Every structure is written in structure tokens, then in C-alpha cells.
């Protein structure tokens, strides 16, 4: 007994240290569940609400900028309205009025919290389950892509920013349609990385890169950015750096995009993979 007490006296702190570190690492590893802890949710909701109040005040200063941005966007939307409708000309035999059937729904949202200085950045938006937001929906802003929804609460949702080491998206060169995989390496905020574009493809600085729509998350043709630098590196693939068109430092308005046909696409795709 005495020796046990002596032992504890000598190494108790080390044991406590190890215990506390284990708890911390458990939290690190059990990330998805951690979000569900009620306390966290409550605190986040209060924080988001507080942040919204602060933002409300700050927003006044950028009103004129945002106004211009919205006007420009409206103009563009009116010109390209057809992009969000997908042609279904095969159904012409049906005597329905709609040649076009809606595939995407846009939900407007305000950014209430955002960061660019971490390795895994997340964005909080003021729309949640009550507005129809679900996980894996796309988030864009007038300038380009922003991220993907990863957590949905009642009134708020959290999106994984493109500036996150875990972010992956298929992207293509809009001039010739070659597609590759878009990531971020955790370094410069103004430089995304496009991999898997073969060496023989003719690429030049300034080329536009856009979404492919393959993953059923983003509609196709949403602007990602322009090529700022590329490198042949000797392998079979080019190493392409992209200047994102979105300025992640000053996001204020965003749109969450719901794909009405996503379940259908995923279902039919998983069917094929099952038989292989």
C-alpha cells in the first residue's frame, strides 16, 4: 500500500498527463460524434447567434459593395437562367408543359463565421435543416465555389471550405474539358491545386477552371478560378496551380445548392458498382 502511494506520489502527474492527453486524442479521433455533443451544439448556436449580431453591424459598412455584387449577379443569372434547368427533350411525347425540369434549387445564405488561417477551414452559414439544407450540398458564392455542407443544425449549417486539407472535387478546364482532381495543400490561400491533368494537354496561364458536375454535388460549369502557374514535373501529369475566383477572406453571401436528382444518380451509380 505504502509503495503504491509512493509510486503515485512520484508518477501521479505523469499518469494524469497521459490520461488527459488520451482524452484529447480521443476527441481528435472521434471528430464526427464530437459535434453531436449537446453542449457543443448549444455553445455553437450561441456563438453563431452572437456572431450574427456582430456581422449585422459590420455588414452595414460593406452594403454598397454587396449591392453592386448582387446587381452584377442578377444580371448574370438572368442571362444564364437555363443553366439550372436541364433539358429533358426525350419526354416530348408527354403532354406536359415542361420541356425543362428543374434539377437544382438555390438557397441563399449568409456567412456568419469563416476562417482561412487554419489547415482545416470551415464556414458557418445561417441556414439549417428548417430551410431544407442537407449534408453534402454544394455552397457557392457569386464569384465561384465555396465548399460543401458537412454538418446541419436546426438553423445553422457548417460547410467544409475549399481551403481544407480534406476537400476534394473534380474540376475541368473549360476550354477543352479535361478533368482532374482539385485540392488545397494548406499553404497559400490564393493557390489551389489541380492534379491528374495529363501532360499532353495544352494548358496556359489564365485558362478558366470550372466544376464538372460528376460528383452530383456541384452543378457543372460553376467557376473555380484561373490557372496561375503550371509545372510539368517530369511525370505523366501536370502540376497546376489555380488562383480561385472566390475571395475567401471576405465571403458574406453564399448560395447552398440542392441537387434534386442526386439520389437518383447515386442510386443508379451504386447499382453499377455493385455488379462489378
Amino acid at each position: 500500500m505504502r509503495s503504491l502511494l509512493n509510486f503515485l506520489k512520484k508518477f501521479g502527474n505523469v499518469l494524469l498527463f497521459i490520461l488527459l492527453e488520451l482524452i484529447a486524442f480521443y476527441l481528435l479521433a472521434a471528430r464526427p460524434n464530437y459535434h453531436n455533443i449537446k453542449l457543443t451544439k448549444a455553445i455553437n448556436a450561441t456563438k453563431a447567434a452572437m456572431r450574427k449580431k456582430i456581422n449585422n453591424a459590420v455588414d452595414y459598412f460593406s452594403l454598397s459593395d454587396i449591392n453592386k455584387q448582387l446587381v452584377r449577379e442578377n444580371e448574370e443569372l438572368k442571362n444564364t437562367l437555363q443553366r439550372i434547368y436541364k433539358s429533358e427533350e426525350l419526354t416530348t411525347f408527354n403532354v406536359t408543359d415542361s420541356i425543362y425540369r428543374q434539377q437544382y434549387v438555390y438557397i441563399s445564405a449568409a456567412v456568419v463565421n469563416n476562417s482561412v488561417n487554419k489547415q482545416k477551414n470551415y464556414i458557418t452559414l445561417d441556414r439549417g435543416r428548417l430551410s431544407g439544407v442537407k449534408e453534402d450540398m454544394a455552397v457557392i458564392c457569386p464569384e465561384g465555389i465555396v465548399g460543401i455542407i458537412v454538418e446541419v443544425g436546426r438553423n445553422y449549417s457548417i460547410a467544409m471550405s475549399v481551403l481544407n486539407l480534406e476537400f476534394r472535387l473534380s474540376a475541368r478546364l473549360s476550354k477543352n474539358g479535361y478533368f482532374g482532381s482539385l485540392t488545397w495543400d494548406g499553404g497559400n490561400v490564393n493557390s489551389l491545386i489541380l492534379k491528374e491533368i495529363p501532360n499532353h494537354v495544352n494548358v496556359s496561364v489564365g485558362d478558366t477552371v470550372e466544376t464538372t458536375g460528376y460528383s452530383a454535388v456541384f452543378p457543372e460549369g460553376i467557376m473555380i478560378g484561373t490557372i496561375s502557374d503550371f509545372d510539368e514535373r517530369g511525370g505523366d501529369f501536370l502540376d497546376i496551380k489555380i488562383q480561385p475566383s472566390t475571395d475567401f477572406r471576405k465571403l458574406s453571401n453564399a448560395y447552398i445548392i440542392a441537387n434534386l436528382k442526386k439520389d437518383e444518380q447515386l442510386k443508379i451509380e451504386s447499382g453499377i458498382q455493385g455488379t462489378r
Partner: protein
Amino acid sequence: MLNTILKYTGLFILLLAIQLLLLNNIQFSGFVNPYIYILFILLLPFETPSWLLLILSFATGMVMDISSVTHGIHTSATVFAGFLRPYVLNFVAPHEGYELGDLPGIKAYGFRWFITYVIIIVALHHFFLFYIEVFKFEYFFRTLLRVLLSTGFTLMFIVIVQSVIIRR
């Protein structure tokens, strides 16, 4: 005793407020992320028992983690810093040792002593924190640069806070 607890609770709230409301909002490139909340652990009295130091470190890290949604990153780094603090204090101790009742600060042991003490702990804390955050060695040197730059800025903010606000 009660007075001390009240004083440190005030310090805790003040530092976390500065950290969360001010420093976390400075989106100044990904390379500079000062974390001055660690000053709370640095300023605890010399005679704080090690177990209490660890518990307080854990609590500080938890509050940071919960409020900035970082899942254990700050907790593990702060507990690490709290664990090392007694050893660092031994390492930088002046010849005549520490006097009971003194607080670790510029006032009691001078600017040079304070800076050495702060640099060692902040660097260890930031080193642990940034490598845990990235969690791979792929970006080793860039993470190192982040550690060094952030340590510098944290140090700067700590000196400012220490000399401006915490006179009392």
C-alpha cells in the same frame, strides 16, 4: 486565497476573450496564428501543484477547442505545455531560486528571464499544436515556418498584454 482565485478567473476570461474575439479573427495569411491564451498557464503561481496545472491546462484547452470547433487540438497542446512547465521553470531558474509568493512575471525576475521562459513554453506549445493540426509530415518545413512565425507573434502579444494590462 479567494482573492487569488477571483484574480485568475478574471485573467482567464480576459485572455480567452482577447483570443476568441480578436486574435482568432485576424485572418492574416495562414502562417501567423498567435495563441496568447497559453499566457494563463504561464502566469499561474510558482507553487501551483502539478496536478492542478494539468487540470487547468486541460480546461483551458477544452474551452478553446469547443469555442473554435477544433476537436482536441488545443487541449492536447495545452496539457503538453502544462506538463512541461515545472521542468522549464526548473531549467530557467535563477541562481537563488524562486521565492514563495512571487508570481512569474517581468516584475519579479526581469525581462530576460521572462522572455526565455515564455519563448520555451510557447515554442513547445505551438510546435505540438501545429503538427497535431496538420497531422502528417508531408508539409514539414512549411509547418515549421508556421510554428516559428506564430511563436514570434504570440511572444509579441504576450509582452504587450503583460506590460499593458496585467500590471496588477
